[in-house]
């Protein structure tokens, strides 16, 4: 007996795929959001296969390396979460996964700090990229908090010492009333739920902003007049490939 999916037409094409051809209701919130999103980040700007020729330096590698390391941090953290906080203290496999987690954090920060200082010396906030810079700095700060709560959640001598030392700094700000670094349960929830969510969200926004504005161009070369061909003081200067090809 042949079972036919009523949603599949005789030519084998899903009826759902035809929805793109249907007339749209422009007043719908959904349609408006789609228009805004596609206008801001058309596919060729979101995932470009061309970059301005000045995007040719090893320094550019550290942004994507940071994201890659964050992926490894999350993946190894997920394994540790699945097995529970005691696992890596009693299992050699668990200890190895913890080692992967720890070293991926070290690589993450190493790459992020180089990325940050690289962007500083490129003055990468120019051309309406100030929000991109600020989200990057905040991502770094929240990442420091995420790593810090990880060190507090280890349930070993390090977490004992770090928590009893860090409490004085946190308490001096008044934050200790809410954020108790000697409370293991609270710290591990911050470490595996709250702060990773914020880090991933911030990094996601940061990357989208990079795609939105493009990679910051160099300062004027010798012989060039700074701003001679400026489209406007509020220009991001990011001539997309789509615009170039237009």
């Amino acid at each position, binding site marked *: 007996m042949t079972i036919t999916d009523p949603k599949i037409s005789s030519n084998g094409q899903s009826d759902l795929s035809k929805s793109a051809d249907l007339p749209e209701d422009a007043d719908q919130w959904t349609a408006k959001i789609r228009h805004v999103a596609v206008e801001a980040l058309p596919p060729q700007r979101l995932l470009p*296969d061309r970059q301005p020729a000045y995007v040719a330096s090893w320094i550019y590698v550290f942004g994507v390396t940071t994201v890659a390391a964050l992926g490894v941090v999350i993946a190894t953290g997920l394994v540790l979460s699945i097995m529970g906080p005691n696992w890596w203290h009693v299992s050699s496999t668990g*200890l190895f996964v913890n*080692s992967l987690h720890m*070293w991926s954090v070290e*690589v993450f920060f190493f790459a992020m700090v180089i990325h940050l200082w690289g962007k500083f010396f490129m003055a990468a906030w120019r051309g309406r990229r100030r929000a991109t810079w600020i989200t990057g700095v905040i991502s770094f700060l929240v990442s420091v908090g995420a790593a810090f709560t990880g060190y507090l959640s280890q349930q070993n001598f390090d977490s004992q010492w770090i928590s009893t030392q860090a409490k004085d700094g946190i308490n001096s700000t008044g934050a200790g009333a809410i954020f108790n670094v000697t409370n293991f349960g609270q710290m591990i929830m911050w470490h595996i739920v709250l702060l990773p969510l914020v880090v991933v969200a911030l990094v996601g926004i940061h990357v989208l902003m990079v795609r939105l504005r493009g990679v*910051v161009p160099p300062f004027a070369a010798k012989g060039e007049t*700074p701003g001679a061909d400026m489209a406007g003081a509020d220009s991001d200067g990011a001539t997309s490939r789509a615009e*170039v090809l237009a």
Partner: protein
Amino acid sequence: MSADKAKTHKLARPFKQDRDIADWHGRYTPYDLAKEGLIALVVVVLLVTGLAVLFGSPDDTPVTVKSWSTANAVDFAATAIAELDGTSGTATYGAPYNTNGTAMSIGPISPQKWLGVHHPINTANDYVLGPLSTVANQPEVQAAVAEYKAASVDQQAAWTAAYEKAVADATFVNGNLVVPAGAYGPVGVIISSLTSMARSGALDGALLSSRQFYGTDYTKPLLFVADGTFLEGLAVNQHLAGDQWGMMNETGSYPGQAWLWLYTLWYQVPAIGNSDNADIQVFAIMIGLTTLLALVPFIPGLRSIPRWTRVYRLIWRNHYREVEGQGGGTSTSGSPPQVMGEVREPVTVSG
């Protein structure tokens, strides 16, 4: 104001090199982001795996009240009497644990004081008298606790002062705490019994289980352990003390939280590190510096540092070599846009 007028107004802003940019009209070259991302991921995985195989990660056994009192019963007893008479670090800490200490402040600013007590700890009751009240079948212990509680504050102070003086010369012989004789009333039995309880492991449980079965809050036992000198001694041996760049380090030779170097640096400055308000001063400095870092794009002078230092010429050295080799000024502002060698007409980018 209409949108056109608003745009005209923006366009009229003077160009600032450290804030604004010119449009890029130069070449575009192939750049495979997905491929670069995958390669970066593979390299990171290999690097992390190599480091994990070669170096592993530290996992030193935590100190328990049992291990502390077993390793150094005299230090435990000296700490216990300080908890009983209210002179320990925790007993005199202040907010958020109690009201017995002076909160840190910078001038009139003292958020520690403003937010008050949120994790109340009465060291005499929570660390000494409370746990001993759970000891069964030892009437002499309960009698000592009852006698201590019933005494006047002055009497209690006289007993604990006498014991504090005596415990400085105490020894631990054949499983017993031997304290020189003195007029310390029931305090001798109290501290001796608490030491035995600690060495049996029962005190660890008593400190944790005081609230509920599934406890995850280690505030009380951690602060108790930290009040002694045993934990600190282990930390000093592992180069973890405050004057050894403290908590940015990790046991062993692992890199630890190296990204906290600037935070830890301020504690090494004598004027700050020796201050009674060091912690809030360091936090204030770091909050200020972090705010500056985040707001660099808005701060004239600070945002010019990249242009002044000219490190950017190293980063974009290929670009400058190409542009300036052509006589200058032809790539970004004069030449028509090209993609893969194709010459295009100039385009204008709207902001």
